[in-house]
């Protein structure tokens, strides 16, 4: 930059000059309240980066326990690791400070202590404030994980009357402390000024380190669950609205309902093949590191689980949902149909869950992937079953909020389930055969019956003149929109399990269970009765506003559910299914 003349000071005068003028200094979003973080807390910085400079003059990183360290890696590498000493421009440590502690620290950092700290790997050993000392080690001497220490550091207070002492220890390659500790005294940094601006101790860009911006390599591999909206794993393809049949099903259901890898590099229609089950399997077909910098902006926006084009359009054909004629009608429907239906569904799914073989006894000789697939399928069915139980609770909550005085818990399963428009089918206890799975998918299909079952409640509660209280509306929306996940789970299961269905015998993933007798399943049925009873009591108490009392029952229900699961497994091992009801054996 030798030809660069000294910077001169110019003042913009007219509007274009003022608009285009780059003001020296920090940009407007230096303030938290002026940044995107105002709307999406956490999106603009990693708060851990504040605490890495909690002690003046030192910079730490929170290091986690490595997942699978190579044998030659140094031991005990986790903890609050001192990255470097950085006292030169630390605003807490001005050269000319009259404070004794500042001068002591400066002397230490610029002298022997500084030299010592630059040799070997140093970690935070303990901190002390207000007479309390926390040592970052298990009883057996294993250092804490860095993130755990970070939580303790977060609890330190700043202020002139809150001195902090810290000790640093050096660990050698074997993870053994090999020299004397260094103890330092100071204060915790105040991360923001009174005006809300971050301390000047932080370098530009320091606070955003570790975030995966879409245009950075990290984004491709980002697996954090914090930003599912920015980084969905699987999505459905965009379909034209007029590609729907009058039944609400797509003309080409395979195309419309196949889950695709959002990061797939082939965005042409031929690239729209179903995503595989694990990240590793999908990896080769995804946008690569070198591509993501260029292609991130081509990643489509996803609305309602579906990729959208340039403009998101609401389906103009979507049949409008009319509210119930009266709130009483809605209550009646909730009581007689919706809540009871959720109960039936969760029991059917539980039954199907127990029909899945034990992954530990899977024949991995013949079916190398069976164990993994079983683990996946079992977890998925259970999640959906629990989801339906949650729905049942929400439906009950709607009832008690709407009619607090007349509330009675609804925990009796309905005898029928919807099947297509205005039709019903009998409830049925079935193992998770291909046919049963196909039926489950049908029931949970987005835009299908379940998906829209609550739409009428939403439309009713949306009427502000009748229901000024927005909480109920929000609750109904939550139930209404929660079903897509179930559909996704079952669809994935179908893909995963199909290969075991050879057409002969029971597929390898199933146990040949049959609905047992009440005598055979007495223990399980008693537990089931206890669970229902406990829930009824808990809901009633909650309806009366007695939350703490209700919690006691909820806890008991949880414990019983655990026992119930064990019992269900034991019965299933003997090929006995639990007879939640007696009719409709399939």
């Amino acid at each position, binding site marked *: 930059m030798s030809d*660069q003349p000294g910077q001169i000071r110019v*003042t913009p*005068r*007219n*509007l274009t000059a003022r608009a285009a003028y780059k003001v020296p200094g920090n940009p407007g979003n230096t303030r938290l309240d002026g940044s995107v973080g105002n709307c999406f807390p956490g999106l603009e910085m990693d708060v851990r980066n504040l605490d890495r400079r909690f002690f003046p003059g030192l910079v730490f990183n929170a290091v986690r326990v490595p997942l699978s360290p190579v044998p030659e890696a140094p031991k005990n590498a986790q903890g609050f690791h001192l990255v470097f000493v950085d006292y030169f421009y630390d605003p807490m440590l001005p050269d000319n400070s009259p404070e004794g502690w500042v001068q002591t620290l400066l002397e230490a950092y610029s002298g022997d202590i500084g030299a010592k700290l630059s040799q070997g790997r140093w970690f935070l050993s303990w901190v002390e404030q207000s007479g309390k000392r926390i040592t970052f080690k298990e009883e057996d001497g294993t250092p804490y994980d860095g993130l755990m220490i970070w939580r303790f550091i977060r609890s330190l207070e700043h202020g002139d009357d809150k001195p902090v002492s810290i000790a640093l220890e050096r660990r050698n390659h074997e993870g053994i402390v090999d020299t004397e500790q260094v103890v330092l005294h100071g204060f915790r940094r105040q991360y923001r000024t009174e005006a809300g601006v971050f301390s000047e101790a932080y370098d530009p860009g320091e606070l955003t380190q570790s975030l995966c911006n879409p245009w950075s390599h990290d984004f491709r591999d980002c697996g954090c669950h914090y930003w599912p909206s920015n980084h969905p794993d699987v999505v459905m393809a965009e379909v034209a609205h007029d590609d729907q049949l009058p039944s609400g099903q797509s003309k080409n259901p395979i195309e419309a309902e196949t889950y695709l890898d959002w990061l797939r590099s082939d965005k042409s229609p031929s690239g729209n093949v179903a995503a595989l089950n694990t990240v590793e399997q999908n990896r080769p077909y995804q946008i690569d590191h070198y591509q993501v910098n260029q292609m991130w902006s081509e990643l489509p926006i996803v609305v309602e689980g579906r990729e959208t084009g340039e403009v998101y359009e609401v389906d103009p054909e979507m049949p409008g949902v009319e509210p119930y004629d009266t709130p009483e009608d809605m209550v009646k429907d909730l009581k007689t149909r919706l809540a009871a239906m959720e109960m039936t569904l969760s029991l059917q799914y539980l039954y199907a869950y127990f029909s899945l073989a034990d992954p530990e006894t899977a024949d991995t000789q013949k079916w190398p992937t069976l164990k993994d697939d079983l683990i996946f399928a079992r977890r998925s069915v259970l999640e959906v079953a629990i989801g339906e139980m949650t729905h049942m609770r929400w439906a009950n909550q709607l009832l008690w909020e709407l009619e607090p005085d007349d509330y009675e818990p609804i925990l009796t399963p309905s005898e029928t389930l919807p099947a297509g428009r205005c039709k019903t089918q009998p409830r049925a206890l079935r193992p998770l055969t291909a046919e049963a799975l196909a039926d489950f998918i049908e029931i949970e299909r987005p835009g299908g019956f379940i998906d829209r079952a609550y739409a009428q409640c939403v439309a009713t509660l949306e009427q502000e003149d009748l229901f000024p209280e927005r909480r109920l509306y929000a609750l109904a929306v939550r139930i209404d929109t929660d079903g897509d996940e179930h559909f996704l789970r079952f669809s994935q299961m179908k893909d995963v399990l199909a290969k075991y269905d050879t057409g002969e015998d029971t597929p390898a993933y199933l146990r040949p269970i049959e609905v047992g007798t009440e005598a055979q399943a007495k223990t399980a049925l008693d537990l089931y009765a206890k669970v229902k009873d406990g829930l009824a009591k808990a809901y009633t108490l909650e309806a009366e506003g007695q939350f703490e009392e209700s919690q006691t029952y909820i806890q008991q229900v949880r414990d019983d559910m655990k026992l119930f699961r064990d019992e269900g497994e034991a019965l299933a091992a003997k090929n006995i299914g639990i007879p939640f009801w007696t009719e409709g054996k399939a």
Partner: protein
Amino acid sequence: MIPPAAQVHFFDSQHGDHMLAVDGSRVFDVPAGTADQFASMDQPGQSAFLRSMGLDGAPFIDDTPPQDMPVRSLSLAVAQKCNLACTYCYAAGGEFGGPARNMEWEVAKASVNRLVAEAEPGVRINLAYLGGEPLINRDLVQRTTDYAVEQAQANGLSVGFSITTNGTLLRPEDAAFFEAHGFAVTISLDGVGEVHDKLRPNRGGRGSFDTILKRVEPLLAAQHRMQVGARVTVTPQNMNLPETLDRFVGMGFHSIGFSPMLASPNGQHELDRNDLDEMLAQMIRCGEVFEAAVMQGRRYPFSNMAAAMQEIHRGTHRPYACGAGGGYFGVSADGGLFACHRFVEDEAGAMGDVYDGPDLRRENWLADRHVHTQSPCNTCWARYLCGGGCHHEVIHRGRPACDYIRGWLHYCLQAYVRLSEARPDYFGAPTLAASA
């Protein structure tokens, strides 16, 4: 590559040294001596200097001409004939070199339809009536106006009207009509009394000034929604601008503007270099009167100056001098589309007709006329404020007035600094960033 020296223009005022960054028409205050320092640098040094001030970003204006611009404004040559015989008339006696004739209703109607067809709801379309002398065809003006109002209402558009007249045929009832539709009325005047008459004899050779005055007065009195302005074409014969300006201001015109006579069909009364120097001096005197008035918080309707102040304040930067051939076209009596009113019946500016809209010649025009393609404009510091000069004059006479244009803009930049210091409220701001 445009040399760095053509990227900036330095000027001073009593408030210090200033710099116009040509790109984006940005005005900065700079430390004293910056201009000399800049002049003494070699090219790489100058480039580095501009970089250090952040003036090396993506340019505000690139080489790409605008695409698919909708037609927003049309001027209708409702009467290609004139009752006067101005010695320098661009329309050569109102006939544009073609036969004298009136515009037919069908053509006027098609013009309105064209504007409506290209406008989305909420947009403002503009109709200008010109001639010749448009009031020769008053019936058509009225009928077209009514039709345009009706069409605009039916399509959710707003519509603005303007008319440029020599004033001799104005009738009292015109005032009511123009007022009702909020017309911008421009009266072409060439000075006061005799001076005017010499330049604007009627066809019988008698002067027209007094007749005009009598006829304009009712309009001036009725101004409310309507705005009545005077446009003075400056020739060597009417070079007493401050007096003319003052007189017209006193008469109650809403705005008064001067334009130099640079290209007339017969070469008569064109200004030469000395005349232009003289005109510049007189314009600056008018500008000083304007400045004094604004300092006192008075409105002074000198339109050249008022427009320049607003444009400099906003940093207006344009790749063309005007909208001719972009969003604006002139319509000839028989429905031909031309780059502007001055190009009517001129092959150089022909671009289709109102029925089918502008044709391909318009893209070529916009590509050809872009100020970046014009020499010497592409290295002139005034290029984005001037836009390269009136196409009509440039094509027919070249650029004889560049020193005048730059001289005027240089003065306007200085005046802008003075006024923005003294009266930030004039620019709509309570206070302005303190100067260096």
